[in-house]
């Protein structure tokens, strides 16, 4: 069953490469989305044309780590300009930045964010992040149970992010709801309404910060020149919008998959309790194994891509869920191995758009695991309850009831 409005297959696409790919409705999306995606492509060629891969759109899907890496690195052929198209939801034309810019312009916007999210900067945030994790965990520890997503996954990373960005933590729930409303799983009306709420809120905040700058990231962005000139209002909004959506559901859902895994695999949970030195590598393994982000590239010129004719205007859909499970790159790719030596996953993408938040994400994940294991005894999925997963803006864990003694 495909979404209404899926366009016809263009002439240059050979019929034998076309597959129906109803991403949202793939069998198993509600229990194990990464496995569902991999099962769906199991017998497909490395490059196939997926009808319905994105809402109302068709795109080439690449199964192989090598091909996905190549697309990420070839920014001349594969542009990021068609990635999110948020502005279209409010009838405007600004680009989410740096996401939807290509080199060479991309570098100037990216350079503004880099110092805020560098490994050394993130290291200085460690204590604050840990204090927050502890506060949240201690808040529900005595209950012996919690719904992980609403109690932790959607609270912890979001509060950290809002503090950095400069938005009020009291509004966190509202921001999360607005962000959910943008997801490809929602109706167009809801997506438009959510985008409007976010854009209006950000414009108001931008005006406030321009009147009275603070030490937050928003103020820093607004005051940063691009190519030696002040940013335009569209550039300011584009950067703020990207930061707003970028920080909200990625780490939350990565946490969801990690803790679902630990709850459902007590031997893995115990291993990390017994050998906490494994945690750092376990996090890389989880990011490889449970790749949550899906991103899109626009083909900029007619090209023969490894024997497949792609035409200017085609879309290419890149899934971390696929790059991370390619057994040509990762031996026993469908096994979680905390001692795995090779961790060159590209779940944070590759090339110039490599996730700016990757180091912050890693630190949050590590601190979350460390403090959970230190403070909460062996936890499992609550008896009689079933975790719920699916597709939002990223592959997601929607509900994860956990219990412990």
């Amino acid at each position: 069953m495909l979404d209404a409005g899926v366009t016809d297959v263009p002439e240059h696409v050979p019929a034998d490469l076309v597959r129906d790919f109803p991403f949202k409705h793939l069998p198993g999306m509600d229990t194990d989305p990464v496995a569902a995606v991999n099962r769906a492509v199991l017998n497909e060629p490395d490059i196939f044309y997926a009808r319905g891969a994105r809402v109302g759109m068709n795109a080439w899907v690449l199964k192989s780590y090598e091909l996905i890496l190549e697309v990420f690195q070839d920014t001349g052929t594969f542009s990021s300009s068609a990635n999110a198209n948020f502005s279209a939801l409010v009838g405007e034309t600004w680009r989410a930045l740096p996401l939807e810019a290509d080199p060479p312009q991309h570098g100037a916007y990216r350079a503004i964010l880099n110092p805020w999210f560098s490994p050394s900067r993130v290291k200085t945030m460690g204590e604050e992040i840990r204090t927050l994790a502890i506060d949240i965990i201690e808040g529900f520890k005595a209950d012996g149970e919690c719904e992980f997503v609403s109690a932790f996954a959607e609270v912890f990373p979001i509060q950290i992010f809002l503090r950095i960005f400069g938005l009020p933590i009291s509004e966190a729930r509202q921001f999360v709801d607005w962000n959910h409303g943008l997801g490809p799983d929602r109706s167009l009306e809801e997506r438009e309404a959510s985008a409007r709420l976010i854009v209006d809120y950000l414009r108001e905040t931008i005006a406030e910060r321009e009147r009275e700058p603070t030490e937050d990231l928003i103020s820093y962005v607004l005051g940063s020149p691009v190519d030696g000139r002040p940013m335009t209002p569209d550039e300011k909004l584009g950067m703020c919008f990207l930061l707003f959506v970028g920080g909200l559901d990625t780490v939350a859902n990565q946490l969801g998959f990690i803790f679902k895994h630990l709850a459902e695999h007590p031997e893995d949970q115990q291993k990390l309790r017994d050998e906490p030195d494994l945690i750092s590598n376990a996090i890389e393994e989880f990011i490889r194994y449970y790749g949550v982000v899906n991103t899109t590239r626009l083909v900029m010129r007619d090209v023969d891509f490894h024997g497949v004719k792609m035409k200017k205007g085609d879309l290419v859909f890149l899934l971390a869920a696929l790059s991370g499970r390619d057994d040509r790159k990762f031996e026993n790719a469908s096994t979680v191995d905390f001692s795995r030596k090779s961790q060159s996953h590209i779940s944070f993408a590759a090339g110039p758009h490599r996730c700016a938040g990757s180091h912050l994400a890693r630190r949050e994940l590590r601190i979350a695991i460390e403090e959970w294991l230190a403070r909460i005894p062996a936890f499992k999925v609550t008896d009689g309850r079933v975790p719920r997963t699916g597709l939002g803006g990223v592959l997601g864990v929607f509900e994860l009831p956990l219990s412990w003694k």
Partner: protein
Amino acid sequence: MRILVDTKKCSGQARCWTLSPDVYHLNDDGYNVMPETVVPASMERAARLGALECPERAITILDD
């Protein structure tokens, strides 16, 4: 031995530094901007480990 880094390819994944911080150094933004470094043979293992892990394949080791 020499470590060659294609600094245009470096995207700040920071795997090289994470695995072998004695060998690989990043700038304040978290990028490897050193196109060529000479390291003693004693650091060979660490150098190779960091190089292999770079998802961008930006690092080459030369035995000389």
